[in-house]
């Protein structure tokens, strides 16, 4: 087995890989940017190497520096996590050249699936159904308008190198095309250094259903059933669950079989995910893209199947066959994941800053993957997701109840988080009955401010008033007995401003 693995990532996913390494008796090497010297992955890894300034381009995306850290530490393999260099063919190829194992699929598979047009064509050949769209790249906004007329609105403008919602824009009518096209190109250039885009029809009433597949270098491929990730905003997933409440047993098996067949067709090994757009009425499904990496939401699959996907990745990268067969994969119970982000739950704007108090949920059937700790300052340079909270239950209902109580237990102060949003989603009729689609947040969720309905407002008002009083008292800026006491009059006669 590998003796030492370098993790070319940060945050919770770096912790996830460190844990797998520890359990396998492998030394883990963290890398960190200037902004991350205090980050938990540096603290928990066996070793830690500095790889550059705060901006990702100069550190976590800096291939030379990462390779140098591998050589300095003597790491025999690299786990890329998700994001950053995880789906970068050049990086995978470079490691191959340097004689360092890449824990992921072959560069050829990354390449093939990384270009969304090639991916679509390949999948069509392998017999996987796909959504109608542009025949290839769309060079200008004018071309986009032409293509859109053929495919029909609404359309999606998508970056060929994009992922995770970056470099993607939904357009409902012709007048919006120009601005959206530019925005998608800008974002794509900014994040991926490549501004090529294409166009697809936007399927209505859609659900996001994805199939986890896993292959080894011996040619075995299995699937680990589906995840539903339809609770999204701006194509950023918020809540995921497995199994999906909408996919019938026979469709689930069919989606699994098609995915395994397709993965075999391209000689895929390591963890991979086939994303489908699923019509909640007709139960049709269309291939969207394949993610050639570990997904953020992989824990829900682990919770229902009992399989440790990261350990399997490491084993497969070393050349071992899969430790489980398709017949060993049984979905037991139900798992739901909530992505906890440092952001304003009403405006969705990121809210990095200093964490004051932090206490994570614990207890039965709760899993926490978090890199938050008290007095940690969340850097502004990276993703706002600071934790994943996963609950398992015998039934979907129980899993929801558990997630709810774990959210109540989660203490994270000093920054705003989307916990109130999660609480509100878990309370929504369309979530509870499973009928939600990817348009849930935008169309069905309703008044965002309503998410602050769960607690007694008086608790907040009284706490603020007593602490404000204590503040004045401690600063000595106010003398108790000298204040005129006209409260009742004020209360009855005078309105507050604003």
């Amino acid at each position, binding site marked *: 087995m590998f003796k030492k693995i370098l993790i070319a990532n940060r945050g919770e996913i770096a912790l996830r890989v460190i844990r797998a390494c520890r359990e396998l008796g492998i030394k883990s090497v963290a890398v960190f940017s200037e902004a991350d010297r205090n980050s938990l992955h540096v603290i928990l890894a066996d070793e830690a190497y500095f790889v550059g300034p705060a901006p990702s381009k100069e550190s976590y995306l800096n291939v030379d520096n990462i390779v140098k850290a591998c050589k300095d530490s003597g790491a025999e393999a690299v786990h890329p996590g998700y994001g950053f260099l995880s789906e970068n063919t050049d990086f995978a190829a470079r490691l191959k050249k340097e004689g360092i194992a890449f824990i992921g699929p072959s560069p050829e598979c990354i390449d093939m699936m990384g270009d969304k047009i090639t991916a679509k064509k390949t999948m069509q050949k392998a017999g996987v159904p796909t959504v109608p769209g542009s025949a290839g790249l769309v060079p200008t906004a004018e071309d986009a308008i032409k293509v859109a007329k053929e495919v029909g609105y609404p359309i999606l403008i998508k970056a060929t190198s994009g992922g995770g919602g*970056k470099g993607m824009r939904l357009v409902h009518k012709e007048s919006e095309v120009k601005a959206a096209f530019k*925005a998608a190109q*800008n974002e794509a250039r*900014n*994040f991926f250094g490549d501004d090529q885009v294409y166009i697809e029809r936007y399927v209505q009433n859609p659900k996001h259903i994805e199939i986890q597949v896993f292959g080894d270098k011996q040619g075995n491929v299995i699937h680990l059933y589906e995840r539903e990730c339809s609770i999204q905003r701006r194509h950023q997933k918020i809540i995921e669950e497995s199994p999906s409440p909408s996919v019938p047993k026979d469709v689930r098996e069919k989606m699994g079989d098609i995915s395994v067949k397709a993965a075999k067709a391209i000689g895929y090994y390591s963890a991979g995910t086939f994303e489908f757009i699923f019509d909640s009425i007709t139960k049709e499904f269309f291939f969207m893209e394949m993610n050639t990496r570990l997904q953020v939401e992989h824990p829900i699959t682990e919770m229902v199947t009992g399989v440790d996907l990261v350990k399997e990745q490491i084993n497969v990268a070393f050349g071992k066959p899969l430790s489980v067969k398709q017949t060993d994969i049984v979905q037991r119970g139900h798992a739901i994941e909530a992505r906890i982000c440092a*952001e*304003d739950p009403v*405006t969705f*704007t*990121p809210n*990095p*800053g200093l964490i*004051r*108090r932090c206490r994570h949920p614990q207890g039965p059937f709760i899993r926490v993957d978090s890199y938050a700790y008290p007095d940690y300052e969340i850097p*502004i*340079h990276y*993703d*706002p997701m600071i934790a994943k909270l996963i609950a398992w239950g015998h039934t979907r209902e129980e899993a929801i109840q558990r997630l709810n109580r774990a*959210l*109540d*237990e*989660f*203490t*994270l*102060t*000093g920054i*705003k*988080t989307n*916990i*109130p949003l999660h*609480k509100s989603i878990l309370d929504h009729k369309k979530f509870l009955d499973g009928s939600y689609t990817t348009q849930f947040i935008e169309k069905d969720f309703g008044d965002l*401010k309503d998410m*602050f309905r*769960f*607690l*007694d*407002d008086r*608790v*907040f*008002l*009284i*706490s*603020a*008033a*007593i*602490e*404000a*009083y204590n503040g*004045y008292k401690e600063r000595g800026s*106010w003398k*108790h007995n000298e*204040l*005129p*006491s006209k409260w009742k009059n*004020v*209360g009855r006669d005078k*309105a*507050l*401003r*604003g």
Partner: protein
Amino acid sequence: MDFQAKLKGKDYLIRVDEQPKYWGITLQEKGQKEEFHKIPKEHFKRMDQGVSFLFDESSYMVDVVGEGTQYTVYTRGSYREIPLYNDESLLHESLKGGGAMGASDSLKSGMPGKIVDIMVVVGDNVEPGQPLLIMEAMKMENEMKATHPCVVKEILVNKGDSVESGALLIKFES
């Protein structure tokens, strides 16, 4: 000590009366009856983890952040932002001559981040919903739009600038 507070668009009056063993709290929502709460000091206890607050026979671990007239109160995974004025600070605000929560005549950044693009110039007449600038923070681009018709008076940032939360970005005249 008397405070005026605002929460969810409602106005409140809160009197804090400190006694040796308890807090006497009089709370009144505008237009509603006032209620009095006698809170033993043992029930509002400052600890390292925050304030352990037993209220209405329920237990809360509360964290209060802020000073002056702006407070954020966190508990049980949620939070509230509460503007809070006592007589003195009300006076203070009135001297400044501005409505504390009045209509906004400027655009401030709601987060620390980087200015990616600016879509207006000084003198522009902008309409509600019109994009003003794009900020990037935590890998996310955020388009900031106008909320009411106004004229751009001054732009205080340049493309590429890094700004702190609360920084003044654009001034308007209505």
